[in-house]
């Protein structure tokens, strides 16, 4: 009898380690770029969500609700399978960055909005009364204060984002999950493959999760 974790399957895994290294690299690159995109979108739409300008508020609301209430897989399928029918062909790597970035941008927008809302409105008034513009006040007065509150949930989002890059496997994106699927489906050594990439994801996420807990301790925010 041969179990899913038989030793010769592990040997094959270590022999083909470059396959997984390639995927690991792609996953990290997609994660970093989509996190940058998510932060930009999250801050812009989070701030718009707190503004007095009704249209901006509406746009932010629509973005957040639409993205949060549809599955990431559908959004990625739309970018990958749907857009080409409208003559928009985005390379699969960019599909990953865009899909995951836009998705988590919506969550970060909510985190940012809650952070800004927690800052006393007198802070905005004080800054405006000194002659700051709305965005100037945000940048120099509100966001630096909100960032301390927002940091723990933000790192939590980063962890989720890393895990969600695995959606790329569904559109042949070449990420860690895809490589494991591809490699193990040829030889059916899925046991070692998924344990190994599980550990690699853990390697990326655990430090961030630990950081989250430490930050929560510092700001006195507990879940």
């Amino acid at each position, binding site marked *: 009898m041969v179990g899913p974790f038989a030793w010769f399957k592990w040997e094959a895994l270590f022999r083909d380690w470059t396959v997984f290294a390639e995927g690991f690299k792609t996953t990290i690159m997609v994660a970093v770029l989509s996190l940058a995109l998510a932060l930009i979108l999250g801050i812009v739409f989070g701030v718009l969500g707190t503004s007095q300008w009704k249209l901006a508020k509406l746009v932010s609301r629509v973005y957040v609700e639409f993205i949060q209430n549809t599955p990431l897989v559908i959004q990625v399928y739309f970018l990958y399978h749907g857009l080409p029918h409208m003559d928009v062909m985005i390379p699969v790597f960019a599909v990953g960055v865009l899909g995951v970035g836009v998705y988590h941008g919506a969550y970060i927008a909510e985190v940012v909005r809650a952070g800004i809302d927690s800052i006393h409105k*007198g802070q905005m*008034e*004080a800054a405006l009364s*000194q002659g700051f513009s709305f965005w100037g006040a945000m940048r120099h007065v509100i966001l630096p*204060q909100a960032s301390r509150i927002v940091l723990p949930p933000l790192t939590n989002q980063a962890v989720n984002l890393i895990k969600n890059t695995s959606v790329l496997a569904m559109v042949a994106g070449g990420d860690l999950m895809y490589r494991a699927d591809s490699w193990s489906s040829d030889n059916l050594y899925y046991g070692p493959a998924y344990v190994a990439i599980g550990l690699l994801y853990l390697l990326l996420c655990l430090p961030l999760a630990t950081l989250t807990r430490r930050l929560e301790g510092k700001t006195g925010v507990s879940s």
Partner: protein
Amino acid sequence: MIQLEGVNKHFGHLHVLKDINLTVKSGEKLVVIGPSGSGKSTLIRCMNLLEKPSSGKVTVDGVDITAHKALVAKVRQSVAMVFQQFNLYPHKTVLENLTLAPMLIKKVPQAEAVKAGLAYLDRVGLKEKANVYPSQLSGGQQQRVAIARALAMRPKIMLFDEPTSALDPEMIQEVLDVMVDLAHEGITMVVVTHEMGFAKTVADRVIFMDDGQIVEENSPQRFFENPTHERTKSFLSRILR
């Protein structure tokens, strides 16, 4: 210096300001009193457009700020405001609170902004607190820093929105002393307050507001010694016991 013409303000179905007409002359010290909910805070907040009037015109230093939205930020640089809750920036040191806006908005070089900031702190008696954070100060000290922060923009007009209402009684005087000192300098001041002693000694003119309207306006002597309106009388009798 400041001119309000036919200003109305609604909050939902509440009519908070009712057809206000008011002119503040350059260098004048105007004190606004009235019961809470009378609209006096809304009135002063209309002067730098923190509150947008539902209708009417607000002119500050010759600029119609209700018509020219783009100029609002520019006008605000010369109209400083001191708040009831101080609203110091908690993530900045005392000195940084003073230098932030001058450096970023007026593009004053850092060395110059720091020098001026320290001078203003000295004026409110808090130079030695330059490098601490606001949370380490008492309420009275925070409000004095807030005044110094307002001054650091070298404003033409200073608006005070109940600057002593959030303070413990023993700290009120130190803030009033700074304000009295300031009043001797010829800067235009509009002060919403319940401090009648301050009104008597400093004001050129006192207005009494009730129910969104200016009920009475007069010089401080006439106002306190010989109020004409019934509502003014009853308010004063309650407050002056």
